[in-house]
């Protein structure tokens, strides 16, 4: 069942009605709440999808990828370069983003996935930073000037479409992509044999290999899949935001957010990134409204991460599932207190 099964079981009535209501709400969202909340919804959907893409490699496979944001930027720049430098419509850029991300992710995966743990984290981080620096120097990415993408009606599929490429359009695009990401994750990682292989290699690589799982192959598949998902969101985001710059779409903060969202929600769970993504995104977007400062959410998130790691390593999902109760926190605190015996 899905990660929150116990909670959902506690809801009154048939769970299908709740899903139906949620679906209707999401579909009607931009019309119900106006353009400000449509933008918030759009961003939340994108970040939930991105958090889930990180969760595939970081949560399910246990490889802490600290350079995942690079693929978001690569997707954005692949689409942007196709549209600006070569004059192709968006769909071509979209396909190109997928192809470029997949090829690059595979080429990176072959050597990098030989590393484990902290080494993998450092290597991916270094790689992402190099890509960002390269994008700042290269001419095709617009260097330090960035790229401005066209958004007239004929830039979608090459001929003019009869609807506006507006915020509402992008809201539904993100809704579609986010839903697709969730379904793919659910099917591949929670239902399919593939997910069991991935979890087996995360929990014990040697044991997984002794069972005949080709761990190298599975790792590469997960990595490429998660990177492609990030690139897909990146390409749509680039077109939505119209202007992309290496310091925005390739910034380490993109990776940081994905990691934080997946971790706070619960690593290696289907619904974790939804909760974590919503929480962090809303904190960040509404920070200036509710906290009176546009950066105050950063230290707050820092504390949240530390508290989560200390007391609830399984994240919000762990709390909802009842894995982390009052007794666990008390036991944890007692053990922690013992470690302060310094004199």
């Amino acid at each position, binding site marked *: 069942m899905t990660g929150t099964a116990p909670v959902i079981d506690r809801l009154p009535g048939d769970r299908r009605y709740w899903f139906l209501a949620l679906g209707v709400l999401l579909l009607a969202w931009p019309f119900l709440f106006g353009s400000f909340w449509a933008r918030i919804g759009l961003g939340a959907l994108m970040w939930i999808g991105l958090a889930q893409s990180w969760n595939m490699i970081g949560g399910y496979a*246990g490889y*802490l990828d600290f350079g995942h944001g690079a693929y978001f930027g690569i997707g954005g720049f692949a689409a942007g370069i196709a549209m600006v430098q070569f004059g192709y419509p968006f769909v071509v850029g979209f396909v190109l983003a997928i192809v470029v991300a997949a090829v690059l992710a595979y080429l990176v995966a072959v*050597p*990098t996935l*030989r*590393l*484990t*743990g*902290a*080494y993998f*984290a*450092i*290597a991916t*981080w*270094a*790689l992402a*930073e*190099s890509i960002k*620096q*390269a994008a*700042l*120097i290269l001419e095709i990415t617009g260097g330090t000037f960035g790229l401005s993408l066209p958004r007239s009606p004929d830039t979608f599929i090459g001929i003019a479409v009869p609807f506006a490429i507006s915020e509402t359009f992008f809201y539904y695009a993100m809704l579609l992509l986010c839903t697709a990401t969730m379904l793919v994750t659910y099917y591949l990682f929670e239902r399919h044999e593939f997910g069991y292989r991935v979890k087996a290699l995360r*929990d014990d690589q040697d044991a997984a290999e002794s069972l005949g799982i080709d761990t190298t192959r599975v790792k590469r598949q997960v990595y490429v899949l998660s990177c492609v998902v990030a690139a897909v969101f990146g390409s749509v985001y680039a077109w939505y935001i119209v202007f992309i710059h290496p310091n925005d779409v390739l910034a*380490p903060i993109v990776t*940081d957010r994905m*990691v*934080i969202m997946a*971790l706070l929600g619960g690593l290696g769970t289907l619904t974790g990134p939804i909760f974590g993504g919503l929480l962090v995104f809303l904190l960040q977007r509404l920070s200036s409204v509710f906290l009176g*400062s546009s*950066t*105050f*959410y*950063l*230290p*707050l*998130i*820092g*504390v*949240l*991460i*530390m508290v*989560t*790691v*200390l007391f609830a*390593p399984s994240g919000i999902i762990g709390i909802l599932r009842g894995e982390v109760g009052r007794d666990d926190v008390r036991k*944890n605190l007692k*053990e*922690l207190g013992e*470690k*302060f*015996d*310094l*004199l």
Partner: protein
Amino acid sequence: MVDIGLFTQIVINGLLLGGIYVTIGVGFSLAFGVLEVVDFAVGEYVMVGAFMGAVLAPLFGAEGVFVIPIVLVVFFAVGALIQPLIHHVTTGDRPHPLLMGLVFTFGLATFLRGGVLTVFGPNSQDVPSSLLTGGIAVPGLGTFPVVRTVTAVFGVSGLVVFMYYLYRTRGGMAIRAIAEDRTNARLMGININRYQSIAYGAYAALTGSAGVFIGMTFNASPGMGLQYTAFAFFMVVLAGMGYLPGVIIAGIVLGLTQSFTAVYISGNAVLLVLFAIIYVVLLVSPAGILGKGEWAT
């Protein structure tokens, strides 16, 4: 045609820069060796140190040097109190202890960076110093800027004191024993909590005071941390994780690479070159260029 004067000046600058990077690298490497944690907060300690310099220096007649003792004490105390938290998340029955430690320090880094950004705003601030200005011209070699020279001397002497403690005293032996095998060290009656706290506190103190010097050399800005985290990673990867003597060579390589790239290629390419080197070294020789580091899992 290579200009000899420029060349030697670049070497001097590179070596002096390397001196201060060594300070950061040694602590980081030790934190890894003893606590088995890869500390994402290292650059933020540098940043907070630099900001303490900027904030406190005006209270001491606009002299950043006088802030150093305060920074040493404060960072030692704070580091000693943070260590038990890190120890807690990296032990016990939780899954992926090393990754949990990594994520914890990542949270700490976010907290420090965001906190300073929120309190002081995004602008950079100067760390004033009237003692350390100007340069000493050495005929035939080039100019030794005073602030960089003192910084490098501080860095190297910090390293020497640290190595003396580590290799010539009982406390240092205890720390090395913990690095070797935590469980066995505990069985031998070592208070591992205490010595781990000392190690982490010393690391934080060194890094924070390096931050004051870096602030005096350049300036203090909330976004500077990431770069030094990158440098620290660069050094331990090159030196081999947990292998302290390698850090000296790695620091010098880093300083020289930085100053040569900046002059002969482009200032923008420095990080690109550094990251490319880290990536290649990690893939080709994960135990460092000397091959003496340890493997982490």
